[in-house]
């Protein structure tokens, strides 16, 4: 017998229980992105658009304002990759094609070493081409005027860390340089005060190659009696009072002071192996 109480209320429509529906939804919500992720991880890097290394030589200006963007360059691709929060998607500036293109952010893979690759299935969307005006690259970025230009020079005395931060390549090249072990051992034992004043220009490609070597030696010598100082010069070297006072004709130039007196000047040839040149000088 059925209870009248029960029948006093309208009968609820019968709901068929589907225990697997919830699991299915969960699987869809969680699984699809995972599957895409797994699939994406399976996509290899593009054969050409890979090996983008951080590049500190240039900055990006958008409508006249410096944009907070990360720039990378790949020798293989011959292209700059620009990424930043103000860009709806990463931008590729191809030096061999003269083209400006965008690529979907999901097609960019950051590697553990700080470099960046594009996935092989990355599709590039053309934004047109760029023009070169002096030392600036101009292009249109979806209605905004974009300019790639050299980073402003570091001038005057600079701390070692400021140099490394200025150009990622300085840190990279410094870590790649292998100083002469024998010379370094001898330099650690120097008991006189030695000061090496390095005149350089952040605009100077040869400095870009050689200053990191001094940074490395500076790091490795640690708390020795040898002290390095770095002084950035403008392109018009002689316009700088310090350079004029020290009669600097070119960069990089290292002036070595031993016991407060100038003992030698190092030019390009000595600065290829600064620790060896320094050790030879101090052992005289």
């Amino acid at each position, binding site marked *: 017998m059925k209870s009248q109480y029960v029948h006093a209320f309208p009968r609820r429509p019968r709901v068929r229980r589907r225990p697997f529906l919830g699991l299915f939804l969960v699987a869809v919500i969680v699984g699809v992105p995972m599957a895409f992720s797994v699939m994406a991880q399976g996509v290899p890097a593009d054969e050409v658009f890979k090996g983008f290394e951080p590049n500190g030589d240039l900055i990006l200006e958008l409508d006249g304002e410096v944009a907070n963007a990360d720039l990378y360059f790949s*020798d*293989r691709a*011959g*292209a700059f990759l620009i990424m930043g929060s103000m860009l709806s998607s990463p931008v590729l500036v*191809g*030096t*061999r*094609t*003269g083209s400006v293109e965008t690529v979907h952010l999901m097609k960019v893979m950051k590697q553990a070493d700080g470099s960046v690759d594009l996935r092989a299935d990355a599709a590039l969307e053309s934004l047109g081409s*760029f023009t*070169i005006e*002096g*030392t600036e*690259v101009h292009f249109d970025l979806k209605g905004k005027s974009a300019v790639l230009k*050299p980073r402003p020079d570091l001038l005057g005395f600079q701390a070692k860390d400021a140099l490394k931060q200025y150009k990622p390549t300085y840190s990279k090249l410094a870590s790649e340089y292998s100083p002469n072990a024998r010379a370094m051992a001898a330099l650690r034992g120097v008991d006189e005060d030695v000061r090496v004043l390095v005149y350089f220009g952040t*605009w100077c*490609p*040869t400095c870009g190659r050689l200053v990191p070597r001094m940074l490395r030696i500076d790091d490795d010598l640690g708390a020795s009696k040898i002290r390095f100082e770095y002084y950035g010069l403008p*392109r018009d070297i*002689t316009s700088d009072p310090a350079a004029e006072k020290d*009669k*600097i*004709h*070119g960069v990089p*130039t290292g*002036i070595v002071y031993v016991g407060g007196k100038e003992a030698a*000047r*190092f*030019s*390009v*040839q*000595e*600065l*290829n192996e600064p620790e060896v040149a320094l050790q030879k000088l101090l052992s005289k």
Partner: protein
Amino acid sequence: MMSYPPPSTTPYPLWRRALAYLGGAFLGAILCLAAWAKALDPQAFVRQVEAEGLDFLVPATVVALLALGIEVLLGSALILGLRYRWLLWSNAALVAFFLFLTGRTYWQHTQGIAPPAEGCGCFGNLVERTPAEAFWQDAALMVPALLLAFLAPIPWRPLARWRWGLVTVLTLAVMVLAWKAPSLPLDDLATRLSPGVELLDHCVGTAEDGSRICLGGILPELADGEHLVILADLGDEAFGESVARLNDYHWAGRGPKLWVLTSASEEELFGFRFGRGPAFEIREAPAALIRPFYRRLPRSFVARHGRVTTTYSGLPPLDVLSGSGSTDPAAETNALP
């Protein structure tokens, strides 16, 4: 019929005439050697004329050609013993003019007006001298010789006609050489880059003021292994169009490692990097350092352990160097045996 006065007997003793001849001949030899060096690379001399501002009346090419002619004429006349007073005074004026030019460069150098590696004298590319060396060497070599030549000037003699004929032929020959030289295969002869040359100690500037720059400092990698170096003008359209082939060579990784040496300006370098996309390494070098290595660009060479083994006028035969092709018959090659 025109009559000439009889040849007068010279009033000077033999030793004096001998010294005068030796002095004159020495000065003449210097002038002729300098003219020869400039005739082999006339384009460089034209640029020097422009740089010195000597083309204010006529084009630099004309000035250069005339200057070469005068230099050979006066020099060869002295070698042939023609020490007429007007010739000696012309030589004196020429020497004074050279000393003025080198002295002006020297002064500019001391005042910091001119770059230290510029204006290194009148000997073309065959001799490397600083402005100070150029001035003092010119003065030390030419002035005493000129003074010696003045010890025994000779009176005008019509018998010297055959000598004048020789002087004229020599002068015209050097001027024709200068005119034709750019198209002649004289790179190894006219420049300091030829098979067998040691490269690393090739320097400009002075050690005393820290301005000395050596190729071994710019491209120290040359000291070890085999390298292919192209001296290039990055603003040259034809070189720009060859970048794709050079990139392919670089990526292939066969053959000597490729480098490009240039004295391009910052703007040229920037434009080249963005406009052409080179994958190979470009090193900048002072113009004065690499200028003695070429008459026109591009010029290339292969060096092994710092020593030049082969030179090429123009771009190198990349297929041959990478071992994947046949010799380019158009490439002018000079190699060590």
